[in-house]
């Protein structure tokens, strides 16, 4: 009897403490394996972030998302994104020898395989300005599947990390972050209209030209980029760029006491 009682007690303790331990373990803050995965092992950060805040030309704090998009090149950030809305033919989604399913399944097939139509975009980024690129979201636009034409519209979000600039950032405390929007419209048939990849290449060149402008200061970087591509129609694209300018005369900075908006 005594053995049974002791055995039951031990069993209950094992279950109880096991459950408590499991709960404790579950509530522990997670390590950041995703970040590790995003940044290749051994890859050094592009720029050591000396401060995690920036001020705008009017003296206010720059929203944290924008700061991250500009400074945090050691990881992907949601605000540094290339968003492409494009049309594609459904057969582009198929593997070799595969056939399109029944019409009822075309929408969900397109949704599941949407990242496939982003295949060439990352390569364009990697060949020009990015050291790393990933599709963070790919979806078909609801109701956009045209079974007769065999096409659909897709929205694709690609995040990227910029290549090492080769030069150190200046002292952030003595600079302000300025930004601008670069617009691009390409007529059908012109260079940059043939495909989303070509449109992206054209946009990157436009960004580079804008960054080389006289009014643009140091360390000009692309932030968010948007491309809308439909075959036979004008390509509409835009990109946000940001750079550092010296503090205006008479302005002094102090570390913020309150977190920046969004931070």
């Amino acid at each position, binding site marked *: *009897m005594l053995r049974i009682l002791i055995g039951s007690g031990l069993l209950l303790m094992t279950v109880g403490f096991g459950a408590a331990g499991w709960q404790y373990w579950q509530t522990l803050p997670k390590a*950041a*394996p*995703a970040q590790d995965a995003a940044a290749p092992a051994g890859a050094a950060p592009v720029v050591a972030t000396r401060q995690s805040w920036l001020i705008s030309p009017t003296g206010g704090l720059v929203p944290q998302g924008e700061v991250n998009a500009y400074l945090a090149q050691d990881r992907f950030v949601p605000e540094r994104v290339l968003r492409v809305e494009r049309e594609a033919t459904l057969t582009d989604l198929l593997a070799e020898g595969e056939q399109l399913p029944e019409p009822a399944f075309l929408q*969900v097939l397109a949704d599941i395989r949407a990242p496939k139509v982003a295949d060439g975009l990352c390569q364009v980024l990697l060949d020009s300005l990015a050291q790393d690129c990933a599709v963070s979201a790919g979806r078909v636009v609801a109701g956009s599947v045209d079974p007769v034409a065999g096409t659909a519209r897709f929205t694709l979000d690609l995040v990227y990390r910029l290549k090492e600039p080769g030069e150190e950032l200046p002292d952030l405390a003595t600079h302000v972050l300025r930004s601008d929007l670069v617009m691009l419209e390409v007529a059908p048939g012109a260079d940059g209209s043939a495909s989303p990849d070509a449109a992206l290449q054209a946009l990157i060149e436009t960004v580079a030209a804008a960054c080389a402008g006289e009014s643009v200061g140091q360390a000009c970087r692309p932030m968010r980029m948007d491309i809308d591509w439909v075959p036979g129609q004008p390509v509409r694209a835009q990109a946000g760029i940001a750079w550092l300018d010296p503090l205006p005369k008479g302005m002094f900075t102090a570390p913020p006491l309150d977190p920046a908006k969004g931070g």
Partner: protein
Amino acid sequence: MIRGPISLLVVGAVMFGGVALVWLKPQAFERYLPERVMALLDGGLGQALNSTRRTGDNPGALLDDGADGLVALGPVAALAGNRPVFIPEVITGYGTGVGSDIPAEITTIRPISGCRLTPPLAGTAVGHVTAGETGLRLSFLTYNDSDLAAAVQGFVDRYRESGPTAPGDGSELAYEAYDVAVTETGAPVYLVLENARGNRIWNIHLAPGARVERVILLGGAHAGVANLDPVVPVEVLPGEALAACGIVPAYPPNPGNRVFAALKTGSASDKAAAEARLAAIQDRVGAYNTWFRDSFGVPADETRAGFAGGTVSIVGPQPGAAGPKAVYAGIQGARIRLTQDSYFEIRGQVAAGEDFAGRVKAIATSFAFGDLKSLRQEVGF
């Protein structure tokens, strides 16, 4: 020596069972408990556990005059004109534990082509039953590629949101039972059974001496009839076909309907909108009555037996103390004639991986090039 721990185990098991019964409701156990026990739970404990149900001597007191229609809150059936009556007074052996019943024979029938239904013969009694949602889901379901595609999309969305998950089992596509008790014994009965939405099995329970001349199934997606003599003709006009024929079932709203509430207590603009809506409803009711009378010889609104929420309707008079009650006939072992879609399955009767959930998962996996993990599109920020 070990009597103590065993007693503890027994007490623990009983308490666990009790808690599970209260928490999950008796319907969760219908697969495991004998029918007699389920009937006991349904009739007594089931109602006691359901706090929304009321009891009393007057069946009208168990009818909720709600904003969306009349809802039976207890064992109440609908007579013609939607008069309430206690179920045990009109049908013997009634039960609602049908979720795991397996029919003996399934025969596929097809909807009629066109809009004209065979009218009732002279001298027959027309019984008109309407059904809303009953919650009496059966063990068989039917679906098509669009249903599968929608389920795959739902599965993919959940997988993207929260990681590995199980696909839905398609329970919303299961046929739902509705019980029709026929107590009319003075003349053959021509049954017009009208479903609001979804897949419906009309389960017929006859009183001794009752005869059915013909059954008309109107509305809903797919429909069938159980426990009906195989020689009785069945004609089906589903909801889509009704709409294509320009027929829109409509009935006068109940006194507690939201349209009357808006007329009583709403703002001036609400009242104007409610008046316009009421006028539109009355137009539709008139049009439907005309079609119904032309087709079956009786008006729809006066003959209707069926609440917006309820499980049983009576065709015929309320049996007296000595009158013949209808006799309940279960779905288990029943003969069923039904319309069905591209796929039909009876739960537990299909090979592994070929049920609804299996098909959904197989399609999603195939579309994801064999790797469901790729659905996550995870990027670490």
